[in-house]
């Protein structure tokens, strides 16, 4: 299996990053949940870049928009919750990265595209969405949920070879 060894500090770093991203997702979801008038239409209509037409089409098709709203609210909420809890960590990290990728594509900081919305910083190709995608990728390829998270408990209960793999997390002493 995996040969890498992670120190406690490295694992704690990953867990903290996971929880912070989870918090961000969860509040984005909850805030939309609490606002009965929230709709993705505004964001979709402001879309720029090569996929702008697709996003605008979503906003203008009520059937699709209903789904987009539903998936956004609950996707954000559940991904956030699961990331914080460390449950199905790697799968929800991939799902979360996919969602943020869509946000990135809807308003990409590509050369020549200037967002009309006042932004709080300056971005060229790389923006915070892309950084969050990269961070979620790191979460997806590591086992922070099995270090600190409900995944650990399920892993222990259902996985026979757990003993060996645990070394990944506690390795420093070997």
């Amino acid at each position, binding site marked *: 299996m995996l040969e890498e060894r992670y120190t406690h500090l490295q694992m704690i770093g990953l*867990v903290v990053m996971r*929880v912070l991203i*989870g*918090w961000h997702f*969860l*509040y984005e979801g*909850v805030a939309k949940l*609490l606002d*009965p*008038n929230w709709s993705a239409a505004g964001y979709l209509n402001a879309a720029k870049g090569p996929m702008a037409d697709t996003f605008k089409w979503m906003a*203008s*098709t*009520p*059937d699709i928009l*209903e789904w987009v709203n539903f998936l956004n609210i609950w996707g954000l909420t559940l991904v956030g*919750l699961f990331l*914080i*809890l*460390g449950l199905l960590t790697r799968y929800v990290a991939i799902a979360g990265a996919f969602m943020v990728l869509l946000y990135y594509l809807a308003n990409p900081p590509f050369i020549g595209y200037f967002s009309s919305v006042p932004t709080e910083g300056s971005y060229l190709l790389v923006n915070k969405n892309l950084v969050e995608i990269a961070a979620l990728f790191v979460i997806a390829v590591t086992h922070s949920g099995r*270090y*600190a*998270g*409900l*995944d*650990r*408990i399920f892993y*222990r*209960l259902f996985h*026979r*070879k*757990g*003993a*060996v793999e*645990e*070394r990944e997390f*506690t390795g420093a*002493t*070997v």
Partner: protein
Amino acid sequence: MSERDDKQLQEKTDPGEKRGIERRDILQGMATLPVLGLFGYAVHKQVSYKNATIAQTLGTAQASDLREVNVALIGAGAQGQVLLDAMLKIPNLRFRAVCDIWEFNLGRAIRTLKKYDHEVNGYEDYREMLDKEKDVEAVVIATPDFWHAPHTIDSLRAGKHVYCEKEMSNTLEGARAMVLAARETGKLLQIGHQRRSNPRYIYCYEKLVKEAKLLGRIVTVNGQWNRAVQEDLGYPKRYEIPAEKLRQYGYKSMEQFRNWRWYRGLGGGPIVDLGSHQIDIYNWFLEANPVAVMASGGNDYYSPETREWYDTAMVVYEYHTAEGPARAYYQTQTTNSSLGYFERFMGDQGTLVISESDANYANAIYREVTAPPWDEWIQKGYVTAPKVAEVQEERNVVLDVRESVSPEEHKIPIEFVDLYHRPHLMNFFNAVRGLEKLNCPAEVGYESAVTVLKVNEAIEAKRRLEFRPEEFEVS
């Protein structure tokens, strides 16, 4: 530490055996759980902060002694939702019923109300609602224009006070019947020209125009509502209303039902939807009804199949004010949103640019260089000190004899951060309680309807049409 790790390591060397769960796994497995507690606490704090801020701006404390009013809503579409949102921020209202022929809107309104602890009955037929909801004292109507008259008149006759959206009606006969029904029943009828209750408009009219007379004599007015290109409104397929039912309620198709504003016989087009708000302000500030109107308009951009009314209209009104003649221009278009919407009153001493929105470069007053100084009014706080003009040394501007120096800009010191319709609805409900007079009673709404509906007539006639003074009266 190392001892324990050694022990663990030993355990781990036996891979085939299911190791089971240890206390340490449970602890570490749930290590991040407290974060949710912190999250919940933070969200709770955030929500209570928001609610407290809202409560503060609404002055719930003083309002709490107001009598509770039972309310019903007829028409829960886009505008009905806007009114509903505003009403949910008005204390001491109790919603009893909602009526809409479209399940999609009806369900949404009921769900929204439920969130705010209002248990309401949903109706498709407004007559049934009026029959059954005996406790309802006030009805708010936000249906398509051609339904305003029947909805309002039947509600008034059922003994309810009515707040009806503008345009009062799509026909003058309808509007007249509404005024008469209000008189007959002695019930209140407020028309939804909500700028009439907007603190900024009231301030500008009462303080700046009337009291300080900062504009001098108003000779010209212009205003506009420019909108970007708009697609037709759609609908989720599974919420399509059967053709039979649509016909019963006066619509040919689902497309027509959703986009009624653009159809003859149902609405009045942009000049009525948008223009009536602003032209109503012309009449108010000039304290007169117009004597004549010229207009040019057409269906210049959209397919006449789906947009029967004019997408573009340009209008000139003539007024005889107490101080002399005045001319007022108005335009609306749905092809370009340049400068948004505003009204501009131009007097021989100053210019007032006012808008419901803060986003339209408006809400400032400009002093003509030839006008007497405004120092007194600046000191009294009626307007702010002028913005210092930008130095133009580089450009070496020389004024030609045909030009004048640009007027100085002063800001109007009224912050209006509220839902646009809330003050007007508050005024209505306080009138129901007997505490205030209506800011836009049926008669005022009627004068506005006469003024605006004539534009479509003038476009059709392609000539100047005159108003007789008695046209504005209902007898």
